[in-house]
């Protein structure tokens, strides 16, 4: 391989990796605060992507302008889900296992509803949004400008999240609740409010990622699950709760996929992610007690 090709593959990897990092960051906040595996996370991304697509197609609104709108809309949506579905469920379930099983079903329901509403409103047609498609040349590398925008924005937002979680009071509260809900409560943190906020932020990040994804990927009502699984892969490999770990894992997954689709073939792009995830979990479950079943 030439140096240029390697760099090209790396650059593509960073673009997708940045996006994966952003989605996984949102999933991770929700998992941390509520211990919920949100299998409808990708559907929130899908809604953000459609919002961006329609604003661009109908009124020529730049995706960068729609992005905060998508984030805001999904924040509200996340808060509503938490208030309407998760809070009542917490009251009604007695054990953690029962709560986890029930949330799995609830989010399966949410996934079904969102996918089919999208299908009904916007049909199953593949939507493509062409924004900043012209290639830019940097040091001999030629890449579409929108990809650079995606990488830059995704990494910037993920970085902002890191700073926010690390240094602001709200961020510290979210981390405390993720670590130990009961102790956090004793320390005077309003866990209910943090739950709402956590779900809202997680959903908002999914919406943001949706806006970005819509510029470089086809949008369909069923596009979500793929991204959910990617985000889960990144979250597990990055180590639940660690923002730095998620960044490294996200970029690694992106680069690995882009390398694999260059070397083996594009049809195996998604499989490499699964292989990485399974290999990692199997390795860890034999070496680290955190991966063995204490929570059941």
């Amino acid at each position, binding site marked *: 391989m030439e140096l240029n090709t390697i760099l090209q593959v790396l650059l593509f990897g960073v673009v997708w990796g940045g996006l994966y990092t952003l989605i996984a960051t949102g999933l991770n906040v929700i998992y941390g605060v509520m211990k919920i*595996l949100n299998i409808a996370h990708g559907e929130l991304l899908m809604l953000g992507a459609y919002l961006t697509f329609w604003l661009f197609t109908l009124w020529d609104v730049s995706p960068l302008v729609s992005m905060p709108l998508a984030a805001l809309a999904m924040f509200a949506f996340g808060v509503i889900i938490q208030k309407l*579905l998760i809070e*009542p*469920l917490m009251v*009604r*379930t007695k054990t953690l*296992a*029962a*709560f*986890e*099983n*029930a949330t*799995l*079903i*609830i989010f*399966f*329901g*949410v*996934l*079904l*509803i969102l*996918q*089919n*509403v999208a299908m*009904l409103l916007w049909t199953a047609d593949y939507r493509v949004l062409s924004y900043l498609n012209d290639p830019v040349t940097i040091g001999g590398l030629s890449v579409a400008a929108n990809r650079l925008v995606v990488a830059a924005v995704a990494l910037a937002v993920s970085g902002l999240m890191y700073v926010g979680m690390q240094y602001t009071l709200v961020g510290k509260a979210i981390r405390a609740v993720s670590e130990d809900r009961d102790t956090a409560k004793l320390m005077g943190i309003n866990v209910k409010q943090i739950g709402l906020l956590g779900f809202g932020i997680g959903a908002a990040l999914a919406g943001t990622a949706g806006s970005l994804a819509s510029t470089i990927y086809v949008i369909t009502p069923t596009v979500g*699950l793929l991204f959910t*699984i990617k985000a*889960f892969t990144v979250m*597990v490999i990055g180590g639940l709760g660690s923002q730095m770990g998620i960044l490294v894992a996200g970029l690694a997954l992106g680069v690995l996929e882009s390398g694999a689709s260059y070397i083996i073939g594009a*049809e*195996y792009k*998604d*499989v490499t992610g*699964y*292989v990485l*995830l*399974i290999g990692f*979990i*199997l390795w860890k*479950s*034999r070496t680290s007690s*955190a*991966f*063995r*079943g*204490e*929570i*059941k």
Partner: protein
Amino acid sequence: MSRKHWASLALVVVLAILPIGISSYHMSLLVSVYLAVALAGSWNLFAGTTGYVSLGHGLFFGIGAYSFAVSLVTLGYGPVASFALTALCTAVCATVLGFVLLTTRIRVAYFAIVMLGFNEIIKTVVANTKSLGSSYGLTLPPVPSNLIAYYFLLGLAVLVVLLFFLIQRSKWGYGLKAILSDEVAAEVTGVNTVALKMAMFVISGTLVGLAGGMIAWHWSYIDPYMAFDLAVSFEMVVMAVFGGIGSLWGPVMGAVAMSLLKEFLNTAVPQLHSIIFGGLVIILILWCPGGIVELVVNLRRRLKKADATDRTTR
């Protein structure tokens, strides 16, 4: 035998002679109900007894479907031999997978996702294998009579329920109960946890595989996206949990209720059926997180209480 056992037996007998008097529409409806019961019940045989929630159990459905198709079409065996081969194939796959996944303890959430990942990997591999028809799939000769699917899946559904009933009451059942409540403690007290988990995994996987084989024949066509559809994996979980995970009748009730509800919505509001279905699922689980079984238990307790207060006031 108690009254309950006689009632169950009578139900099976009625279902067995039912095809004489019903239309082909009702028969195909019942076929889909039996399939649902067999799948949810098989899933429950492993997840409900060990606590390991598998999100990719449809993997065995796909493997079964493809084993049957290859055996029938490519290798030219008869249906009986093909079903035997299907069972063997899924059992071997489940054993290999079990060795990888179940020989050490693994967090339930991770186990769930690893299963899902395997489903996706096998799907991609099949879709890119020429001898398995790539993404175009395989065509099977049609089933000679609809009765075959009817009785096969009815038999499978009954077998699944019977197995759960028998295992619960055996020495295995106690070992599994110990694993379910605390795997480490079970291991320490001398339960062979690995062997028990493996056994249930293989039994559960093989039964799902047989259902997959039958359905491949019934559809007389399969492709990787149908056979390894994640909806198959998800639906068995949802039906089992909806009914009541880990109980004998929960998954059966969940599967019957859900497949009938789905069919009803499908004909009543074809445009909106998935949306309404999703909404109903959410409402029901919010109302009663333990599933239908919990609902029935609560109802009975309430009735008894009402009965008791009735007597004391008199």
